[in-house]
């Protein structure tokens, strides 16, 4: 598979791996957090593409670029699987 560059508007999760001691009793879990897309846009430019009115009502925003779906958290082990 070709290595792709992350797209911050699509790939909103960040993953990190805290230090895990051999003495820690539980197996390590990768930590994750979401960076919502508004963090990258700054002041909103005019004339952005819009959702349909019905879709905007469901999603909570008129603009796809601001949409942060917050998919269900997957509890991953150290290898990200």
């Amino acid at each position, binding site marked *: 598979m070709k290595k*792709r560059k*992350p*797209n*911050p508007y699509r*790939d*909103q*999760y*960040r*993953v*990190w791996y*805290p*230090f895990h001691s051999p003495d820690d009793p539980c197996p390590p879990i990768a*930590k*994750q*957090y*979401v*960076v*919502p897309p508004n*963090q*990258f846009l700054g002041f909103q430019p005019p004339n952005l593409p819009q959702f349909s009115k019905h879709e905007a009502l469901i999603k909570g925003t008129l603009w796809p670029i601001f949409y942060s779906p917050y*998919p269900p958290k*997957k509890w991953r082990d150290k290898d*990200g699987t």
Partner: protein
Amino acid sequence: MWIYEKKLQYPVKVSQCNPHLAKLLIEQYGGADGELAAALRYLNQRYTIPDKVKGLLTDIGTEEFAHLEMIATMVYKLTKDATKEQIKAAGLEEHYVNHDLSLFYQSAAGNPFTATYIQSKGDPIADLYEDIAAEEKARATYQWLIDLSDDPDINDSLKFLREREIVHSQRFREAVELLKEYQGQKKFF
């Protein structure tokens, strides 16, 4: 673990006998946007923040304790030789009946310090934005203290502390930028 140096981060000198100013400065000691709240906030949040900004929270949280010590020194110097009449004139009677002239973690309005002043949300972006807001509020508090203080030596120290808030805010903003990166992440979700 900490290593203690028995000196202040920046000198504190008092030029006027002004116990009333101590009553105002206590806001930065035990107030909502004070140095104690800042130190406890950062040193607590750092356990669950990503590694790449953990050191920043440790360093700034430690410096806030150095600031707390400076404020304590100011309050102590401003009140230690106050007479009974000066205590009454400065409105410190309520403090005196409860604490004598010892320091206490409370706001300028006399509200005791509470953990509800600080938050630890667990979301790194939310926590760092709280930290940035806290620094800006502390900077504003220093400005209003400088406005009300006529003591040039105290104001010199307060201006130093105000400038440190600006630097801390800048560092936290940079930390947000670091958290936005995908550094070391092999898969994208």
